[in-house]
């Protein structure tokens, strides 16, 4: 029984690894996605580095906005948003893949469903993380004094929004019958997440009710965790906990959806 359990765990790990690697291979072999990933980075580099660096200074004293301008605020927010959108795009493939592709055979293999979900989420999140990580040099372009430790901390924390959104996307993709329904659901979910977060705009000047909404938005926690890691060399505890909880819950949703697939 123990041997069977051990071999089951080995099968699960190997299966998850294969699926994660496949997600990455698919990304590298789809030229359009590569161009889009690099293009997004370049565009933001141009806008932030060339146009906005030092041009916007928020009210307040001693804040990072005052010290480094709006660009310093924007860089971690942009990284979080790029991770979010890249994760959503990569989870769209699950829909077609599940109905008429590679994933059909994966579902009739003995690899446990939780490992299938873990593989897809890990691979997709890695792709999203990489695209977001490409924006990190923006910090230096914008003149933010980021040390190596802070950069590494920010990159580690950046995993959380990538995993969270990739998990959410995967959970919905398992349930959606076609890409159109997926887009509709994701728009309904992501637009408020994005617009009602403090990824692009500081919460300070917002109306009181909106400030509450923004502060309860899990994407704000993710952006703040990345921002604090980049600024202070370590993420602020509460945003980090919130972002980790968000990622964990979303991953659980992906596992549940995978286990229910085809039932």
């Amino acid at each position: 029984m123990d041997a069977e359990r051990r071999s089951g765990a080995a099968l699960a790990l190997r299966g998850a690894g294969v699926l994660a690697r496949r997600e990455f291979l698919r990304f590298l072999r789809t030229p359009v996605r590569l161009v889009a990933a690099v293009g997004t980075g370049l565009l933001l580099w141009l806008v932030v580095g060339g146009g906005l660096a030092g041009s916007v200074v928020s009210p307040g004293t001693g804040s990072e906005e005052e010290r480094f301008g709006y660009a310093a605020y924007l860089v971690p927010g942009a990284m979080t948003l790029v991770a979010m959108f890249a994760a959503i795009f990569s989870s769209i493939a699950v829909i077609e893949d599940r109905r008429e592709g590679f994933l059909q055979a994966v579902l009739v293999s003995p690899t446990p469903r939780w490992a299938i979900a873990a593989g897809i989420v890990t691979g997709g999140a890695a792709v999203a993380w990489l695209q977001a990580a490409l924006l990190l040099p923006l910090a230096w372009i914008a003149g933010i004094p980021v040390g190596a430790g802070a950069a590494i901390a920010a990159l580690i924390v950046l995993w959380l929004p990538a995993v969270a959104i990739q998990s959410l996307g995967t959970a919905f993709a398992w349930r959606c019958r076609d890409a159109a329904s997926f887009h509709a659901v994701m728009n309904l979910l992501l637009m408020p997440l994005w617009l009602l977060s403090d990824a692009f705009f500081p919460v300070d000047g917002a109306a009181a009710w909106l400030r509450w909404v923004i502060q309860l938005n899990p994407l704000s926690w993710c952006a703040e965790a990345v921002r604090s890691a980049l600024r202070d060399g370590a993420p602020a505890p509460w945003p980090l906990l919130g972002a980790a909880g968000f990622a964990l819950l979303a991953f659980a949703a992906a596992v549940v959806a995978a286990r229910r697939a085809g039932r």
Partner: protein
Amino acid sequence: MVAAVIIRDVSYRYRGGAMALRGASLSVEPSSIVALLGPNGSGKSTLLRLVARIGRPDAGSIDVLGERDDRRIRARLGVVFQTPALDRRMTVLENLRAHAALHGLPRAEAERRIAALFSLHGLADCADDRVETLSGGFVRRVDLIRSLLHEPDLLLLDEPTTGLDPPSRAAFLDAVFSERDRRGTTVLISTHLVEEADRCDRVVMLHRGAIVADGAPAALRAQLGPRRIVVQGTETPPSAGRGGGAASAAAPFMRGRDGWSAIIDDEASAAALIEALTRGHRSFAVAPPTLADLFARATGEALDAGGDGAAEPADSRTGPRGRQGGRRGR
């Protein structure tokens, strides 16, 4: 001998409400090749998916390989779907290695089996090609290898030759038969093609979710008369035109892909019909009955008419008279 698959009174309803299976019961002997024959929408794919444990029946039960645990069943199961389950952006070898890993094959063993299957199916040359660069026939063969890598005891093939030309279809089926002969694999294959079903050990006909005929192809054909007469090149059923009345009295004409056809049970009726058609200058052909004829007789619908396509009885159509011509052969 314990059956490889035992399906007991299985019913299944789609989420939208339509019934896909109605009380289907079936037992599949080990090492046999059984065809599920029926038009689109007859429940073939649903039945295969339930056997593969993708979904649960609403009523009834399905025993697979005497196993109770889904994961153990899947470990002994190979499935080929209607669309190939390969990643088009990966190479043939990458796809096969990935599936070997998902079935827990040790790397060295996987490489050995891949090499052996490549050699058996003549695919070694395309190992490093991306799947998207291969022809449909090659992709299907690679997909078959994918399903055989873990040496399954039961192979489920869901319309596996869809989109292939006749030679590729034949080659694919040859490979399936050779696998059964080599390892004694039990095969359950769904198809709407009579020529594919005819090659199998046993044919189970499905119509609107129910099993309407079950037996060896020769035994099923023997239930029909010795002859099948097809009246060609006409929109008009023979009974409505000249020289068909005698025929429709003996056996009603049904509309199929190649014209209006009637199964004639005895020599005297056949001779009378042939004479009547000749007198009426109708173009016709005489051939042995096929499994499609048995399906039409059992269901009143043509096998190639699709799920909702009821074959039209000869008396139900009116319209312009068909082109008249001489007898084409017998």
